[in-house]
C-alpha cells in the first residue's frame, strides 16, 4: 500500500497524564449525556443513582485504560493504520459493506469462537448476548434515557419514552408487555446457561485448568452468576412471594452489579472494548496483500506483506528493539523458518573452532 502516512508511534507527553485526561473526558461525556438525556434529570430515577454513579466511574476507568492501551506502539500502529485504510475514499463503500459482513459473523454470530470449540462458543454466545441485551436495557434505564408509564386515560395501556419522547404504546395484554417486563429475566437465564457451560468446560479441560487464574477467568463467571441469580430472586420475590425480602434482595443485586461495573475496566471484561479492534486487522491484511510481499534475505521466499514488515520495523524502533545486523542487513528481513535453521547452524559453528577440530582428531 503506497501513500499511507507514517504514524507517530512515540507521542509526546506523559502516558499517565494523557490517559487520565481521556478517562475524565469519558466520565464527563457520560455525565453530560445523563443530564441532557434525562431532560435535566427530570426523568432520572434517584433510586438508581448508585448504578449511574458506578457507571460514571467505570467510564473513567475504561477511558483511562483504552487510552493507555493506545499508547503502546504496536496497538497505536494497528489502530490508526486500520482507520487510515478503512477511510481511503476510493475503498470506503466496499469497506463499509465488508464491515457489515464481518460484524455479522464476528460480533453477532461470533463464528470465530465456534472454530476454536463448540462448547466455548455456546458458553460465550449466551454470556455475550445475555449481557449485551441486559446492558442495552438497564444502562438507559438507570440514566433516565428511557422510562415507562401507564397512560393517563387508560390503565391498560403502557407508554414508552426515549429521551422524553413518546415512542411506543402497548396494551398490557399484548405480546410486547410480558417481553418488556421480563426481558431481564430472559437475559439472566441466557447468562446462567452461559455460566454453566463455561464452568463445565473449565472443569473438564485440563489445559484450561492449568493456566486459568481466579481473578481473570473465574471471578467474571462468579460475578455474572451472582447478578443473574439475585436478579431472578427479585422477580421471584415480586411474583411468587408477595415481595418477601424484596428490599434486602434489591440491595444485594445492586451490590453485585456495582461491583461488576467497577471491575469492568480492569479485568477480563475489558476485552469487550478491546476486541472490536480485530475488525481493523481484516482491512489491514487485505490492504497488505494488495501490496508487495516481503522476501526473506536468506532463502528468498516471500513470508509476509511488505506493509507489515515495514510497520513492524517502525514498531521495533519505537520499542528500542535493535535488530540491525553488523553486516548491514536487518534481522526482521529473515523469515521465521530461516531464523530457526540459522540458530542451529550458529550453535554448530561455535563448536567448529580449530581447537575443537583438533580435539576431535585426538580421540582417534
Amino acid at each position, binding site marked *: 500500500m503506497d501513500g499511507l502516512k507514517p504514524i507517530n508511534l512515540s507521542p509526546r507527553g506523559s502516558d499517565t497524564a494523557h490517559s487520565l485526561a481521556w478517562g475524565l473526558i469519558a466520565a464527563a461525556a457520560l455525565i453530560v449525556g445523563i443530564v441532557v438525556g434525562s431532560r435535566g434529570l427530570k426523568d432520572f430515577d434517584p433510586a438508581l443513582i448508585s448504578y449511574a454513579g458506578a457507571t460514571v466511574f467505570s467510564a473513567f476507568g475504561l477511558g483511562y485504560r483504552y487510552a493507555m492501551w493506545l499508547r503502546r506502539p504496536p496497538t497505536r500502529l494497528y489502530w490508526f493504520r486500520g482507520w487510515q485504510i478503512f477511510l481511503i475514499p476510493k475503498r470506503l463503500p466496499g469497506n463499509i459493506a465488508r464491515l457489515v459482513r464481518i460484524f455479522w459473523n464476528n460480533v453477532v454470530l461470533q463464528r470465530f469462537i465456534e*472454530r476454536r470449540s463448540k462448547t466455548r462458543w455456546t458458553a460465550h454466545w449466551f454470556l455475550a448476548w445475555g449481557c449485551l441485551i441486559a446492558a442495552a436495557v438497564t444502562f438507559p434505564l438507570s440514566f433516565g434515557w428511557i422510562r415507562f408509564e401507564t397512560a393517563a386515560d387508560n390503565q391498560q395501556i403502557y407508554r414508552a419514552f426515549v429521551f422524553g419522547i413518546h415512542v411506543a404504546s402497548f396494551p398490557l395484554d399484548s405480546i410486547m408487555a410480558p417481553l418488556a417486563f421480563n426481558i431481564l429475566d430472559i437475559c439472566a437465564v441466557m447468562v446462567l446457561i452461559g455460566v454453566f457451560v463455561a464452568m463445565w468446560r473449565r472443569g473438564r479441560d485440563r489445559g484450561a485448568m492449568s493456566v486459568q487464574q481466579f481473578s481473570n477467568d473465574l471471578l467474571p463467571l462468579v460475578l455474572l452468576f451472582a447478578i443473574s441469580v439475585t436478579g431472578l430472586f427479585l422477580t421471584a420475590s415480586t411474583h411468587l412471594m408477595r415481595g418477601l425480602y424484596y428490599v434486602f434482595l434489591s440491595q444485594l443485586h445492586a451490590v453485585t452489579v456495582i461491583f461488576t461495573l467497577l471491575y469492568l475496566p480492569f479485568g477480563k471484561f475489558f476485552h469487550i472494548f478491546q476486541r472490536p479492534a480485530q475488525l481493523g486487522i481484516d482491512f489491514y491484511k487485505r490492504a497488505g496483500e494488495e501490496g508487495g510481499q516481503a522476501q526473506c534475505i536468506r532463502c528468498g521466499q516471500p513470508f509476509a506483506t511488505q506493509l507489515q514488515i515495514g510497520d513492524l520495523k517502525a*514498531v521495533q524502533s519505537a520499542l528500542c*528493539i535493535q535488530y540491525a545486523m553488523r553486516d548491514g542487513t536487518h534481522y526482521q528481513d529473515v523469515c521465521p523458518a530461516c531464523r530457526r535453521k*540459522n*540458530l542451529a547452524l550458529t550453535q554448530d559453528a561455535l563448536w567448529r573452532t580449530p581447537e575443537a577440530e583438533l580435539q576431535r582428531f585426538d580421540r582417534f
Partner: protein
Amino acid sequence: MSERAFYIDYSRCIGCQSCVQACAECDTHRGVSLIHLETIQRRESVQTAPQVCMHCEDPICARVCPADAIKKTPDGVVQSSLKPRCIGCSNCVLACPFGVPRYQVEIDQMMKCDYCYDRTSVDKKPMCATVCPSGALTFATAEEIQRSRRGIAINSWKFGNEVVKTKVFVIVPREVERVNVELVQISPTPSALSDDPYDVALMLESVE
C-alpha cells in the same frame, strides 16, 4: 539439588520426530503440535533441529503484540496467546528472534509452546523433553547437565544489537558466554545440486 530447567542442544537432534508427536499430546493444546523441527539444508545434510519457545525474560513477541495477548507467568513462562485477546495479526510470529509462534489459520489466532505448563507447573517434564531420545531436548538439573555434557549451558543471545536472555538454556563450548547470532548461509556445493527429477531430496523439497 537445584531446580530442573530446559536445555536445548540443536546438534544432538536426530530428526526422529518423537517431539513433534509428543507435543500434540500436551493438554494445553491437545491435537496441535507446536514444536518446530527444521531440516537445515535438505540436499546437503541430514541435520535437523528442534525449536521450542525459549521463554525470554523480556519477550519480544509480547512487546510487539498490539492486543497485549501474551503474558508471562510469575515463574517466567511466556504463555500462548490469550484467546479473548489475540487478533491474529502475526506480529509475534514475525518478530520472535527464535521463530517460535505459529499463526493457526483455522482459528485465526497465534499458538505457541507454553513449556507444557500443565506439567512443568507440577514439576513434570515437558512432553518433548520426556520423549527425546538424543538429549537434544532435556529437562534436568544444572548438576545433571554438568555431569553429562562436554560444553556449558548459557541463556544469553544477541541478534543484531538486541541482547535476549532466556529461561531455556543452550549447550555451547565452555569459552562461549553469549551466542552472537549472525546470518549463516550455507551455499550448496555444486556436486550436491542434482538435476535428476527423481532425486529424493529434491522431491522432498517440493513437498515442503
